[in-house]
């Protein structure tokens, strides 16, 4: 691989890494949103159960 080719590979590689890092951040955020949604569902179910009992 020539020096010029290495720089081209580096430039395209940086772009790929950026997109992958972005996807990883979004995936982390999605996992957090999923946890929070599940927590809110549990909270709502508990509240509905309390309303029925009380």
């Amino acid at each position, binding site marked *: 691989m*020539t*020096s*010029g*080719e290495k*720089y*081209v590979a*580096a*430039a*395209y590689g*940086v*772009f790929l890494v*950026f*997109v992958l890092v*972005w996807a990883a951040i*979004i995936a982390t*955020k*999605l996992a957090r*949103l999923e946890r*929070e*949604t599940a927590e*809110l569902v549990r*909270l*709502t179910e508990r*509240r509905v159960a309390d309303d029925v009992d009380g």
Partner: protein
Amino acid sequence: MSSRNNLPILAFAAAGLLGLAVLLALLVAPEDANQGVSQRIFYFHVPIALTAYLCFGLGAWKALRLLWVGGDRRDLESYTWIHQGTIFGALTLITGSIWARASWGVWWSWSSNQLVLFLVLFLFYCAYFMLRFSIEPGPRRERISAVYALFGVALIPVSFLAIRLASDFIHPTVFTREGPQMTGEMFAAFCCSWAAITLLAYVMYRTELAGKRTDLNLRALREALAR
């Protein structure tokens, strides 16, 4: 099909176009006579820079609409576009720096107006986030952020035209009044990359916006349940 559920199709289209763009840029486009293989960075570097300008411009447009018409959803849209612009701005600086090292032998040249003005634009929008997160959420933050985003848009034409106003001629000028200074295959590779990266930016914007809206909705739901 509504615009709500076309995001996966757009994401696949962006991935396909990006693959095609890489093939065209690396295998189909002929090698540049002056710069050799390193010129192939151009096919991604310039579309990334143009996409960054577009994202900042759209952020400013949403900010203008917020100040003109109002509505907190425009604040989130403006913020998300500027966030995308910053991501693509960082990529522009990094890929440009790699290209500069390959072509000029240096990672950075302070004598090139184009580079310095792009850095100023990038840092200006980085400061947008510092300003935004130093103010409590609410209408005041929305208005101040919108005004700041609008000020930044004035730097875009200056940065874009700097290459033509510059007297050093270090940074290459590919698009002149006579048209693009490249072969048809090179221009096709460039256009494909530009379309792919613009579409990718739009998909990223829509994904991030959906995440931020869901976050806000969940927060509102949590507060409502806590009462």
